[in-house]
């Protein structure tokens, strides 16, 4: 094999020339390895950065916007919230348990890196269909991994989504969001400063984890025992190590012992050392021999690029080193001085602080000079498929409605979602509500945080721009249903292969749709993650931007009503009329995924959200649920199955009224004695209403369309996941 080394490392010829120009000499193999991991798509966002700039990122309450380890917003009472979302899609496809576990571990570190105590995780998950054994194997393993790691590390998993669809067969989406709280005055940034300060590596020893990309550099000697290609690219998470690391790091921050702190994630030490140095405008000398190793015989390029889990890099002044080591010892966290802050901006890798220089590169060049691609875009020429509007009415609408139901409690009952005594509304509802307590004093503010994640690949496949805007709108309405007003968005952009112009077009359109909606709702984007190359067997996944929306409940004096029915209550549908079936869940199950998406009227949407928020705050409702996937039919069926109360709906024109997914619509469950008052409030807010029926009895009836027993409806809701996921799985 005469392939040049840079290509084997995944660098293009142009990128290699660029590196030599930066260094003004040919790069050595260690340097090339470091550039290759730092300039990878995963670390540099080289395909997406140019588009991400178009997102609105500013608001008076934003303390830290995109580009740091997490976004931070001021939530009042001297408290700031740090939030971030990430993907761990590819690792989860080959080792679901550990892929998902280490995904949770990684994002927790991003949050406590900012000085925040992580208080909640959310997991938006997307898997292949339930009738595919490997997809079931992945789903079971991912859920077990989140449960195994999240529960043990002691951070509750308070919500998320779980979607099964053929587009994710072979390429699941495992996204994870983390929320943390910090006293506003403790905000720390991942930067080094102060020449002579020390870089201390905390946590796990470094092994040959996740160095697949640079394993071509392995010396022949290693191959005698083990083939290079079999070297572990999958990492095993250790929640116990992470728990101690969290406590140790927060203790260091409480005592103000660190100048800066940075987690080790993708690209390991190469990234953490260069990032802290370049953010602080300084350089760093790293003694590669000082780094504790898990295995003998590791080479410098392996040590510098290893993605071993549960490690942090703290920058500390020499005078406080002894105290730092003492705190780490108390928490049984290994702490080792591995580097020194220098002036001049060079990142030097040395064999012993006074020993030979193995690499010498401008620290900032690994980040600031990373390539930026404006890849070609092209709208697809072929339409997505027929529109469900052209389909005949179903023969048995009741059966079809039941086919769309899926209770996700099989998933979230495996997650500790109550730790810290904050969870007022947990997983399974429109949005999560957490009590807002001060992170260090524990004082209850009497207010709440509301949190939701949303995505809809069917809408985004039809029209990535309008579809993404609809997803943001849905998030806003989800928060309103629990009484929350939106504060900040984070996004996880899951797309296919960026070398396909159609995929780049989808990405660009989705970003424009998100910008438009965020501006319309006055919510800044404070962070995000881009996951590209989501494809299997040459097929790109449907575009799947996932939104995490954080909001505030200004007065949390009672539990929101939730998506439930109450016997004898009236059902009122809020919002504009809608009837098209383009991009709907019902259409997708009939091989008719195309058509036109329903139009979104921002002005109307804002009015509906404000009205619902007020009604919830005023305790006017017996129940509330926004309409999304599956439309009115699925929303009411979920409410009925959860509460054991039936529904009697007035006549609707046809199945389209049941299954269309028009935006800005919410079902209100209203005590008859309050009905006049509620309707008056709706009129005043200039929001259209329709009195559609009654919550009552043990049947689910839509006049002249369907009539189901509550028992069969509930079974249809509750059984799909336990039945499919108890049915045996295989990794083939």
């Amino acid at each position, binding site marked *: 094999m005469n392939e040049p080394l840079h290509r084997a490392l995944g660098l293009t010829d142009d990128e290699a020339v660029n590196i030599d120009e930066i260094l003004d000499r040919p790069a050595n193999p260690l340097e090339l390895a470091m550039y290759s991991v730092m300039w990878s798509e995963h670390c540099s966002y080289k395909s997406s950065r140019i588009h991400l700039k178009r997102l609105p990122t500013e608001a008076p309450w934003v303390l830290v916007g995109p580009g740091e380890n997490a976004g931070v917003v001021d939530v009042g009472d001297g408290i700031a919230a740090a939030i971030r979302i990430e993907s761990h899609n590819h690792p989860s496809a080959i080792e679901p348990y550990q892929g998902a576990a280490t995904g949770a571990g990684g994002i927790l570190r991003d949050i406590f890196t900012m000085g925040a105590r992580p208080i909640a995780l959310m997991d938006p998950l997307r898997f292949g269909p339930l009738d595919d054994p490997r997809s079931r194997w992945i789903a079971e393993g991912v859920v077990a991994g989140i449960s195994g790691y999240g529960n043990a590390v002691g951070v509750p998993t308070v919500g998320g989504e779980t979607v099964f669809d053929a587009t994710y067969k072979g390429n699941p989406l495992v996204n994870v969001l983390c929320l943390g709280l910090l006293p506003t005055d403790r905000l720390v940034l991942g930067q080094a400063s102060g020449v002579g300060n020390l870089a201390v590596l905390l946590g796990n020893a470094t092994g*040959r984890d996740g160095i697949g990309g640079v394993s071509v550099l392995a010396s022949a000697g290693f191959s005698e025992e083990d083939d290079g290609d079999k070297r572990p690219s999958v990492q*095993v998470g250790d929640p116990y190590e992470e728990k101690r690391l969290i406590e140790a790091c927060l203790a260091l921050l409480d005592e103000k012992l660190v100048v800066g702190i940075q987690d080790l994630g993708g690209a390991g030490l190469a990234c953490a050392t260069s990032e802290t140095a370049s953010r602080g405008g300084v350089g760093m000398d790293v003694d590669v021999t000082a780094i504790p190793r898990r295995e003998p015989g590791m080479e410098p390029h392996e040590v510098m690029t290893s993605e071993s889990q549960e490690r942090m890099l703290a920058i500390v002044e020499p005078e406080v080193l002894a105290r730092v080591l003492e705190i780490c010892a108390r928490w*049984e966290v290994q702490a080792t001085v591995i580097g020194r802050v220098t002036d001049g901006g060079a990142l030097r890798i040395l064999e012993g602080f006074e020993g030979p220089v193995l690499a010498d590169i401008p620290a900032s060049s690994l980040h600031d000079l990373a390539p930026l691609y404006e890849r070609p875009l092209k709208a697809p020429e072929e339409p997505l498929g027929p529109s469900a509007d052209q389909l005949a009415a179903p023969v048995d609408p009741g059966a079809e409605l039941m086919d769309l139901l899926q209770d996700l409690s099989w998933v979230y009952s495996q997650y500790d979602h109550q730790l810290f005594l904050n969870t007022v509304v947990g997983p399974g509802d429109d949005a999560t509500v957490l009590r807002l307590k001060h992170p260090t004093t524990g004082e209850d503010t009497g207010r709440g945080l509301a949190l939701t994640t949303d995505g809809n690949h069917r809408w985004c496949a039809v029209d990535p721009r309008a579809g993404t805007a609809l997803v943001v709108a849905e998030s806003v309405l989800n928060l309103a249903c629990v009484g929350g007003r939106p504060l900040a968005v984070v996004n996880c952009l899951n797309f296919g292969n960026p070398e396909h112009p159609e995929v780049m077009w989808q990405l660009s359109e989705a970003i424009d749709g998100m910008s438009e909606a965020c501006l319309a709702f006055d919510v800044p984007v404070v962070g995000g993650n881009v996951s590209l190359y989501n494809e299997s067997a040459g097929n790109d996944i449907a575009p799947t931007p996932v939104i995490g929306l954080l909001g505030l409940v200004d007065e949390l004096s009672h539990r929101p009503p939730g998506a439930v029915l109450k016997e004898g209550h009236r059902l009122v549908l809020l919002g504009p009329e809608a009837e098209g079936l383009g991009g709907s869940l019902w259409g997708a199950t009939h091989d008719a995924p195309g058509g036109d998406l329903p139009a979104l009227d921002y002005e109307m949407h804002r009015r509906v959200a404000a009205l619902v928020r007020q009604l919830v705050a005023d305790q006017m409702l017996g129940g509330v649920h926004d309409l999304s996937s599956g439309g009115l039919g699925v929303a009411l069926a979920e409410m009925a199955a959860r509460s054991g109360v039936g529904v009697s709906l007035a006549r609707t024109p046809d199945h389209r009224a049941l299954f269309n997914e028009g935006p800005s619509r919410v079902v209100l469950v209203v005590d008859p004695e309050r009905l006049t008052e509620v309707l008056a409030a709706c009129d005043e807010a200039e929001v259209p209403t329709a009195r559609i029926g009654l919550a009552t009895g043990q049947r689910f009836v839509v006049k002249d369309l369907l009539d189901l027993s509550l028992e069969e409806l509930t079974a249809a809701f509750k059984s799909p996941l336990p039945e499919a996921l108890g049915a045996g799985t295989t990794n083939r």
Partner: protein
Amino acid sequence: MKFSALVDVRLRGGISDPAGATIERALPALGYQGVEGVTVGKTIRFTLEAETLTEAQTMAEELCESFLTNPVIEDAEVTVEEAS
């Protein structure tokens, strides 16, 4: 014929083993010095019906590869013998 199989599953070389490491770290405090190389795995035992020992071995290994382990992180040693 009936065969009995014993599958000894352990993490592949180089994969981190937090359970093993934690147990090893706890031992000195309990007064056990010099215990090293603790690893945690699992064993799975079953019997199976096959014509020959080779067939039984193949079947057990296949089961092991596709279901009992994830070869990405785990190695397994499969021992099959005639059931007594």
